[in-house]
């Protein structure tokens, strides 16, 4: 026993150290970004997002008319499936702390929980922006292949579309994160996120008096103009803002309130 305890002795001596500073938000964001990829589940979710993008471009190379094989047409269709998968990333980033009980460690090391939440929201937003870059890169590769194999291969793409795509993906991932914060339970948050807006969309179609409000509250309808390169009108921005207030800002605020007060055990 002495052989194992003797070297231990020096190593566990409580040291006197200089006053320590709290971890910066940048550091916390780096930690939260790392947490997105250091488990199999997280890594595969990101790989899936990349594969879906690549698959859509490949399918178009095979089946789309030559004239339609343009950079624009490779880029836009990849946005929708990614905007469905990204919220799952946002949800898992928040809720896995509770389902895997790592909240006990995370919030013991950073008792200012709002800092951890801010770092998580930044990390998933950066991932959403990275997904837009991936979509662009894959679309570019598709365009190169298309021009080599007889497709149109035109490169025309408005800068406003890239901005729209970035807004779409970042708000998607943040809506997911907001549901995660509010419900703090992975299956509940995923089902809630996928079901509630869809339900609202269906109701908006079926129930005549709801049709008006749905145009302002159903995110699948308000966000639709983001898929085009036309400049959005003031009213379209207004509809996006109102729907995001309901589905993103409110759950974020309520979820943050809940997360800050919740007992960690």
């Amino acid at each position: 026993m002495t052989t194992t305890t003797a070297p231990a002795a020096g190593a566990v001596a409580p040291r006197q150290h200089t006053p320590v500073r709290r971890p910066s938000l940048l550091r916390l964001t780096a930690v939260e970004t790392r947490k997105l990829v250091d488990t199999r589940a997280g890594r595969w979710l990101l790989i899936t997002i990349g594969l879906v993008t690549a698959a859509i471009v490949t399918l178009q190379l095979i089946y789309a008319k030559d004239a339609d094989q343009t950079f624009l047409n490779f880029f836009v269709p990849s946005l929708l499936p990614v905007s469905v998968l990204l919220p799952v990333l946002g949800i898992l980033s928040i809720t896995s702390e509770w389902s895997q009980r790592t909240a006990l460690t995370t919030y013991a090391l950073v008792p200012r929980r709002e800092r951890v939440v801010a770092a998580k929201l930044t990390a998933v937003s950066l991932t959403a922006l990275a997904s837009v870059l991936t979509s662009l890169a894959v679309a570019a590769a598709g365009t190169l292949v298309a021009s080599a194999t007889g497709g149109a291969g035109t490169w025309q793409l408005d800068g406003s579309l890239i901005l729209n795509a970035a807004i779409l993906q970042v708000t998607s991932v943040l809506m997911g994160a907001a549901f995660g914060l509010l419900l703090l339970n992975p299956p509940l948050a995923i089902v809630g996120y996928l079901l509630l807006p869809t339900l609202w969309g269906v109701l908006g179609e079926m129930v005549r008096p709801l049709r008006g409000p749905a145009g302002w509250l159903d995110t699948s309808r308000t966000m639709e103009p983001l898929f085009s390169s036309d400049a959005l009108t003031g009213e379209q921005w207004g509809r996006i803002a109102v729907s995001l207030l309901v589905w993103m800002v409110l759950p974020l605020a309520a979820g943050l309130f809940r997360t800050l007060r919740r007992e960690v055990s």
Partner: protein
Amino acid sequence: MITVENLTKRYGPHPAVDDVSFQCEPGTVTGFLGPNGAGKSTTMRMICGLTAPTAGRATVSGHPYRELPNPGREVGVLLDASAQHAGRTGREALTLSAYTMGLDRREVAAKLDLVGLNAVAAKRRVRAYSLGMRQRLGLAHALLGDPRVLILDEPANGLDPEGIFWMRGLLRDFADRGGTVLLSSHLLREVEAVADRLVVIGGGRIVAQGDKNELLAGGGTVVRARDVAALRRALDAAGLAAADSSEGLLVQADAETVGQAAADAGVALAELRPAGGGGLEQLFLTLTAGESTKEAVR
């Protein structure tokens, strides 16, 4: 240094922790004892800012936990060894925390080595760890930031006897070098070997606290002689009250006083020993017995 002042936590009308106060001084190991469900873990979570107290306050090194700028560098916390992401490797779990605290990467390897998790174990996912390995990983995690204070909830759970022996050495050494240790257990014998002070909690309230030796010596001294009548006279002469017990005479005085009284009267003793922590052990048994009947009923 840990200071707990009148901590109270109510869930509805039921108090889980009721007006608990105690102090852990640097250089000591404090054993936090009580049956399961007595309020140990809730108290520890309140100290660590993870549960908001209904009333009262707790400070670590003079500050409320939530106000420590980088808590991991001041306090090592192990509240539940199973609270680790099952899909991360042991090394990755420590690396994340080391980076959060702003530590050198080398600390991770050093602490893994210290707790006896070798390179193979460190690369495995926590899902595959036994409870004993998780406890070792949790200890490595608590020690990672070279803190001055350790707060450990049932750290001996799942460790084998050799592991428990090793952990006692580690904690003793930590305290001897000026560290403060608070460790909980539901087994008196488990902390008896390492603790300097004991805080006993039952039903959310502190039922006993103080120096371990004083608490354990509370039972008095058992003394036996072939000539019982002579022994009684000797004790009477010294002004010591003696009561009959199945083991001999039970005297509320320490062994030295009793032995001197017998020697002064020339009585040969057959046995002289402390009554074996009767008071505390009895108290603890009562607490635990109540709990096990509750569990049986449930």
